[in-house]
């Protein structure tokens, strides 16, 4: 009990802040480059630095708005204006959790690992819940606005929600344009199991 009280008092009273240089030297001394993964992975861009505040402290609203604008402005829409590829291939991307770990083969295509965090095809029961359920996503319609919104969300989620937990699948080059189109089809196609559930 005494220990607990001591810790609570200490936590309340003197939480220190770590200097960026200390952080950087600790990180660089704490990891080794291995296979295709180098120490450059430890460097933060502006967005990552802004979204690394302990205890979910609210960041500066003006900076957040600027980051959102920058994210939105950098979205690359599909070159030919076609948003939808093959839902079957998109399903594979959604199921595939591989890619960019030092244990992964860099020659193989990356996955999107959508099921890690989202419910999609309701027949797949092994889905995570860090993100919202996307089952029946296609019921939202296929208007230009919906297509562009969803593409943007996949490309760089921070265009709408700064410090969202979701990876920037397009902006960070995790998925190719074709893979993004396929995931879009998995979400929107009326024949996709996301929308067309077997009774």
């Amino acid at each position: 009990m005494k220990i607990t009280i001591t810790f609570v008092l200490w936590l309340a009273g003197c939480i220190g802040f770590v200097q960026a240089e200390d952080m950087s030297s600790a990180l660089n001394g704490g990891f080794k480059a291995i296979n295709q993964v180098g120490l450059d992975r430890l460097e933060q861009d502006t967005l990552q630095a802004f979204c690394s505040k302990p205890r979910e402290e609210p960041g500066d609203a003006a900076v957040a708005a600027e980051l959102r604008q920058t994210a939105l402005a950098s979205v690359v829409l599909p070159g030919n204006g076609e948003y939808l590829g093959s839902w079957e291939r998109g399903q594979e991307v959604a199921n595939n959790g591989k890619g960019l770990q030092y244990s992964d083969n860099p020659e193989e295509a990356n996955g999107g690992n959508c099921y890690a965090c989202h419910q999609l095809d309701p027949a797949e029961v092994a889905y995570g819940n860090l993100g919202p359920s996307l089952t029946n996503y296609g019921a939202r319609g296929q208007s230009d606005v919906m297509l562009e919104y969803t593409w943007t969300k996949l490309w760089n989620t921070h265009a709408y929600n700064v410090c969202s937990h979701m990876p920037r699948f397009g902006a960070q080059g995790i998925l190719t344009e074709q893979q993004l189109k396929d995931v879009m089809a998995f979400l929107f196609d009326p024949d996709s199991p996301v929308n067309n559930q077997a009774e």
Partner: protein
Amino acid sequence: MPNSRIINVAACLVATVMLTGPAHADEAGIFDEYRAMFGDDNPAIFVIEEGEEFWFASQGPKQATLEACDLGLGPGVVDGAYARLPRYFEDVDRVMDVEARLRFCMEELQGRTPEEVDDRPYSLRGDLGTEMEALVAWLAEKSRDLPIAPGQEHDKEREAYSLGEAVFYYRAGPHDFSCATCHGQEGMRIRLQALPDLTTHEGAAVAYSGWPAYRISEGVVRTMGWRMRACFRQQRFPLLDMGSDVTVALQTYLAVTAAGAPMAAPGLKR
């Protein structure tokens, strides 16, 4: 040893069935059934015995045992030492976790090289366990039921906590992940795997007290250091160094958050 081999093989068979099985939904059921089969038994007991043997084995150029190793409570004192880690050690002027301290003792007392000690601290899936894993399992057993009480008196111990917290929230890599991405909210899971919220005392206590653990799906004992390394791999970070300031800081952050809860390791995990 023969027993531990048989259990290893059995665990691998079950793991193979689970990994290749068609329906993920059954996984939790199979694991639960398999775990129930163990009753109060945990294959880690064989690894714990090996750990004790390693402690008393003469090794290295100096052909010395680890009996003079000071884990914080005095040379050779193993009872209750694990639960008091990570902590500051004056002889090296830094905070160390159990693995960093064991590595230091292997080098100092036994004259072994950092290269040898670091070569393969953690076993591969389905492999035979390593010396480090066995020693850590034995030392954790020697702290079973004792309250987690890491050092927070020394400035460097408090600095380790602050660094650990900062690392916990540090987003980087192509996926922008930090520890907090998965372990900063309650009731979350990746696929079917439940994720403890490590920012709360309850979540940190469950996570910290259960490592090291026998991992059924891999047929070996895994340490907290291994768990950290595996998390960073999934974050798409480079290879986390065993015993580095980063892993010590993170374990300090976790242990302080979990402080007061009883140690329950080696545990038995999926």
